[in-house]
């Protein structure tokens, strides 16, 4: 069972690597935010499996907080950072 | 002062909200009985504050409608994932990026639920609200999308015990 969890973790990290490629490539801010969102949900999956693999129940609470943070990052980014660059462009 | 408090205090709503809060605490603390020393007061205080800030909601949730919606949602999001996998793994990349409009009578919380769930169902993504409906981005031709959206709209209307919506 433990080796199965490890294989799953490796595949998840591979998926994260592909997401990093999109962050590097861009071309727009929107694509980069979506890749950051991918980091959030993959991170939750990694933490949940980690909690099971290492028998660390606290990792589940970390996953819960990470899920909330990923949402806040996207909302804050759309509201503040991106909106700000638009105002700059308009003026 | 008494008159003022009577306008927001509503015992049935308070009990429902406290029960929901208690369930939430029980899940978060993983059923640890000793945590109720903190949990019980927090839940009660939060329910009282929520009642003071948000008046009882005008929507009547229909439990059977909610269950049927949940079942449909699970099934449709499984289909959505398989659909995305099929399109991504195809060498020709059969994707058609287009915008369409959808007129709907839903407002408020039902509209919000409609927009959120639509983004997880096959081929639809809510972009913005317009004057009499929604602007939607779809991965397929709009004609294939419309009947699916009407189906979802009816499921949501049943969750909130609304009348069937005309189209």
């Amino acid at each position: 069972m433990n080796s199965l969890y490890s294989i799953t973790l490796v595949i998840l990290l591979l998926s994260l690597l592909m997401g990093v490629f999109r962050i590097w490539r861009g071309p727009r801010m929107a694509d980069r935010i979506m890749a950051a969102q991918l980091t959030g949900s993959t991170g939750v999956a990694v933490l949940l499996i980690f909690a099971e693999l290492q028998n660390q129940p606290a990792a589940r609470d970390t996953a819960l907080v990470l899920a909330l943070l990923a949402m806040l990052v996207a909302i804050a980014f759309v509201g503040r950072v991106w909106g700000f660059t638009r105002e700059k462009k308009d003026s | 002062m008494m008159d003022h408090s009577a306008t927001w205090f509503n015992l049935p709503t308070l009990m429902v909200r406290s029960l929901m809060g208690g369930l939430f605490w029980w899940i978060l603390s993983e059923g640890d009985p000793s945590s109720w020393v903190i949990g019980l007061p927090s839940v009660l205080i939060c329910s009282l504050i929520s009642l003071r800030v948000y008046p009882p909601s005008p929507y009547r949730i229909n439990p059977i409608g909610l269950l049927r919606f949940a079942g449909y949602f699970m099934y449709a999001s499984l289909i959505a994932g398989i659909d995305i996998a099929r399109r991504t793994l195809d060498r020709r990349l059969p994707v058609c990026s287009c915008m369409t409009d959808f007129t709907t009578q839903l407002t408020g919380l039902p509209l919000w639920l409609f927009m959120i769930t639509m983004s997880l169902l096959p081929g639809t993504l809510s972009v913005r609200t317009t004057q009499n409906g929604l602007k939607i981005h779809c991965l397929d031709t709009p004609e294939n999308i419309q009947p699916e959206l009407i189906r979802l709209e009816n499921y949501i209307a049943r969750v909130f015990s609304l009348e069937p919506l005309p189209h």
Partner: protein
Amino acid sequence: MNLLVILQSFLLISGALMFCIGSLGLIRFPDTYTRIHALTKADNLGLGLIVLALILNIESVALALKLLLIWGLVMIASALSGHLVAWEADEQCIPLCQPGETEPHLESENE
């Protein structure tokens, strides 16, 4: 090898592969809007499958509900942020782009 382990391995591996498909879609799809589609839907299903696999060897009901709660939270988060990014992209008139076309570049955004 009993049936439960086989079911669990199937759910875990297909869930992780679903994440990979989401990332692949993020790379392959032609424009911002279609990439949002790929990511939100594939990640939602991927996490759902992994959560189901983990629930299968948990005895405590509260813990199983906690995992479902985390899944629900991620689901709302990805749908909400997908919608917000699509809304902002539409606000900025980011153009649609079909497969095979090259995406027009915005000079100002690439510094």
